[in-house]
Structure formats: structure tokens, C-alpha cells
């Protein structure tokens, strides 16, 4: 593992061999470095932990700013209102907000030999987020050599995400919701850890740009073999404080058209409701509580998730 830039001498011609040496695959037996075995044991621990989870539900988009975390928080609360046991992982390590939205800030995590006990919000949702681990206002930074951070930083974050799932004492859950950060690469990184999530919700808004990114994400997920996906159209209109018809917020394509062009079913259309948004930001997401259009939309979305693969109603 020398510094390649310091290698002396002329480059070896393609196809030339310095000496006849057996290749990796020709040498039988386990590796003495025991790296493969340790990775295998980490994967086994993750699988064992998720064995007690009814359904892993991924909330993703690919696009930022479409309200994934708010959808996750309110869906979690709506599922709890239906009697489900729900955990939530804030996979947005660098821009966490789910912990705040679920009212977890200020919680201390119990450190047990079998794992870390997750924080429990006022609504009963269990959760984990980097917000609970780093100082308020501090950016996420990792210890390590200053140079060539790009080489190891992604690995470090993938391992943290793995620990958020495998090292947390979730107990028996009906649903574990995963709030994936923006970027289609982040969806791929999660699928490297959990290759077969039970359900994936792709959140979009009525915008040309968001629709384009969501279509890419849908293609990526289909190519990865993810079977159950639905589109959640967020901010699909403006819910006036006094009630009445929804007013348009965006001039882009209708979310039902976005779903259709991606070859997916539209699972929910959620209007933007300022009061709903304020409560969510304050750590008290209403979910399906109340008679607002947004609450009704989350009630319908929760029901749809319950009927989907791994959902409680699909098992009855």
C-alpha cells in the first residue's frame, strides 16, 4: 500500500507480467486480514436487527426541498395513530431535521451492551438522528486526515447509517421508516445496505425539475429490483387557513402525471398547510389528527402503507 505517485521506474506494459504469481482467486482459504469476515458479521447483525421489523419503508426523492422529512414525520405519527409500532431513521446525516420534527431533541440515548436505545418522541415514534449526537449548530465532521477526505468520508457515513439500523435496540416494530437525503446516489447507498426494502415512497412536488429527478430515482430503483414503489405528491396545492378550495402553488406538471410518466401509482397528494408545517417544525407533527386536507391525506397514505408489502393489513 505504497504511495503510487512515488513509484519509480517505467510503467509496465499492458499484459506484461513481472513474475508468475497466483492471483487472489487461485489462492484458497480465508483472508488473514479477516476483513471480509468482519464485514460479513456486520451485515449479519443488520439482518438480525431488521428481522423484528415488519416493513422497512423508504422515503426518498433524489431531489432536495420537496419535504421528505416532513412527510416521514407525519406518516410516522399517522401510523402510530392507527396503533402501529414505528421507528424512524434520519439517514440525512449532514442535514438532519427528522429528530427535531419528531420532538426528539434533548433526548439522551441509553447505552446498553446490546445496542443504543432510540429516543421516543411525544407521539410514541422511536427515532435516531445525528441531531442527537452532535452539538447544536455544529456541522457533521469526521475525525481523520485532512487530505483526501473524499476517499474515506463516504465509507464513514455509510457505516454510520448501518449502525443507525443495526446498533439500535428497535425491538419489535411494525414499520421502520428511513428518511433518505437528496441525491440519487444516497438511494443507491441505502440499497447497498438493505437491498430489498418493503416499500419505497418517492416524494415529489408539482415541478418540472423535481419530476425529472424523481423519474431518475424511479428508474434507479426499478433497475435495482425494488418491487413496491408509490409516488407522494407533496405541496400539491395551498390549503387556505379558512378552508375552501386548494390554490395552486406550482405551475409544473400535476403529480399524477409525474407518477404516470414514471410508471408508478400515486399514493397520496398532500397540500401545503402552513399550520401543519409550523407544528411539524415545532416537533409536534399532526399526522392524521384533525379534519384538515393534509391530515386526511396522511390518513390515506398511512392506510396505503398498511396495505402494502409487509404492512399490517397485508398480513391479515
Amino acid at each position, binding site marked *: 500500500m505504497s504511495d503510487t505517485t512515488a513509484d519509480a521506474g517505467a510503467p509496465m506494459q499492458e499484459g506484461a507480467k513481472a513474475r508468475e504469481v497466483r492471483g487472489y482467486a487461485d489462492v484458497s482459504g480465508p483472508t488473514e486480514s479477516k476483513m471480509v469476515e468482519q464485514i460479513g458479521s456486520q451485515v449479519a447483525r443488520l439482518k438480525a436487527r431488521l428481522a423484528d421489523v415488519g416493513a422497512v419503508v423508504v422515503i426518498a426523492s433524489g431531489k432536495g426541498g420537496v419535504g421528505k422529512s416532513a412527510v416521514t414525520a407525519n406518516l410516522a405519527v399517522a401510523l402510530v395513530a392507527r396503533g402501529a409500532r414505528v421507528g424512524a431513521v434520519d439517514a440525512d446525516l449532514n442535514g438532519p431535521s427528522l429528530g427535531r420534527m419528531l420532538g426528539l431533541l434533548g433526548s439522551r440515548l441509553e447505552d*446498553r451492551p446490546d445496542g443504543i436505545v432510540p429516543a421516543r418522541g411525544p407521539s410514541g415514534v422511536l427515532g435516531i438522528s445525528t441531531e442527537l449526537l452532535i452539538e447544536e449548530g455544529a456541522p457533521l465532521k469526521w475525525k*481523520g486526515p485532512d487530505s483526501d477526505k473524499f476517499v474515506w468520508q463516504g465509507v464513514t457515513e455509510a457505516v454510520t447509517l448501518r449502525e443507525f439500523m443495526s446498533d439500535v435496540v428497535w425491538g419489535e416494530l411494525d414499520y421502520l421508516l428511513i428518511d433518505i437525503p437528496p441525491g440519487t446516489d444516497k438511494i443507491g447507498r441505502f440499497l447497498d445496505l438493505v437491498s430489498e426494502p418493503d416499500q419505497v415512497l418517492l416524494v415529489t412536488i408539482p415541478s418540472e425539475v423535481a419530476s425529472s429527478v424523481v423519474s431518475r430515482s424511479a428508474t434507479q430503483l426499478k433497475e435495482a429490483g425494488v418491487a413496491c414503489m408509490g409516488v407522494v405528491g407533496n405541496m400539491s396545492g395551498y390549503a387556505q387557513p379558512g378552508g375552501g378550495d386548494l390554490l395552486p402553488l406550482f405551475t409544473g406538471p400535476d403529480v399524477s402525471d409525474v407518477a404516470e410518466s414514471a410508471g408508478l401509482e400515486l399514493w397520496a397528494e398532500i397540500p401545503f398547510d402552513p399550520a401543519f408545517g409550523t407544528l411539524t417544525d415545532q416537533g409536534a407533527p399532526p399526522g392524521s389528527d384533525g379534519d384538515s386536507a393534509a391530515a386526511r391525506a396522511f390518513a390515506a397514505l398511512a392506510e396505503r402503507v398498511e396495505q402494502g408489502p409487509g404492512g399490517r393489513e397485508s398480513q391479515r
Partner: protein
Amino acid sequence: MKFLCIPCDEVMKFADRDLPGDGTITALFTCGACGRDMAMLANPMETQLVSSLGIEIGGRTVPEQPFQQTRSKLESPKDDAFVEATAGDASIDAAVNPAEAPAARLSVTWSDEADDRLTNVPKFVRGMVKRIYTDYAKEKGIPLITPDVMDRARTDLGLEGM
């Protein structure tokens, strides 16, 4: 990663590793046939990459602790993020892994001096570090953890900075 002794065409065995404290790692491998030793020297970036995976070259000396990588790598951690388990370690060990119950039943206490030294460890990782020393003492049948026991554990387990 496999290391092959070319003259003997034998896979070299892992022998030892050393963390000099400058962010690098040295791993020693030996050929079982001719006795030849070789050292793999990794620069800080390479060492960090392997370490980021949460693995140790040659195998782990202690079981991986919950959130071990996250806790050991975060800058600006919230000092009071974690609270130690309220139940005694032994009862939790026994409940979690009945196979280890006999060792877990051994009651381990900390001397005042060892407790003082533990306060030098940042609170963010203190519970994890304390558990590593406690597990070591249980495994060795040591009922009282003193600074001397902590030193021995560090040497035996290849711990750095604990």
C-alpha cells in the same frame, strides 16, 4: 487481502499489528514455511479507509460496540448524548446473551483510581470504553478494575487512546 510468500507459494499468516499513533498502521505477516516476515505499512489515508469500515486488520481484539464507528469518529459530539444503562451490566448481559451468563454474573467493581482515570475519557465514548474494560475483567476473572488492570487491558487488547 491475502499475502503470498512467492518463493514458498504459501499464504502468509497474520502475526501482529501496531498503531504507532501517527494515524498509520503496521501489520505483520509471516510465512509458515520459510519464516520470512513482511510488514504492510499503510499511510494515514489508507488506515482511515480501513478503519472507516469498522474493521481491524487481522481480526477484532474486542467485540464491536454499539455505534463504535460513529462515536469514535465524530467531531464536535454532544458530550451528554448517551446515558449509561440503568440496570447492572451483569443482568443485562445475562438477558441479552444467556450463553455468557456465567461470566456476566461475576461482579466487577472499579477502584477510585480507575474511576478517576476513566473521567479523562470524553463522556461521549465513556460508556463504551468502560464496557470494554469491564468485559475484559470479567473474561479474566478480575473482580476489581484498577489502573494497572486498565494498562494490561490496553496492551492485551491493542487499544489506543483508552
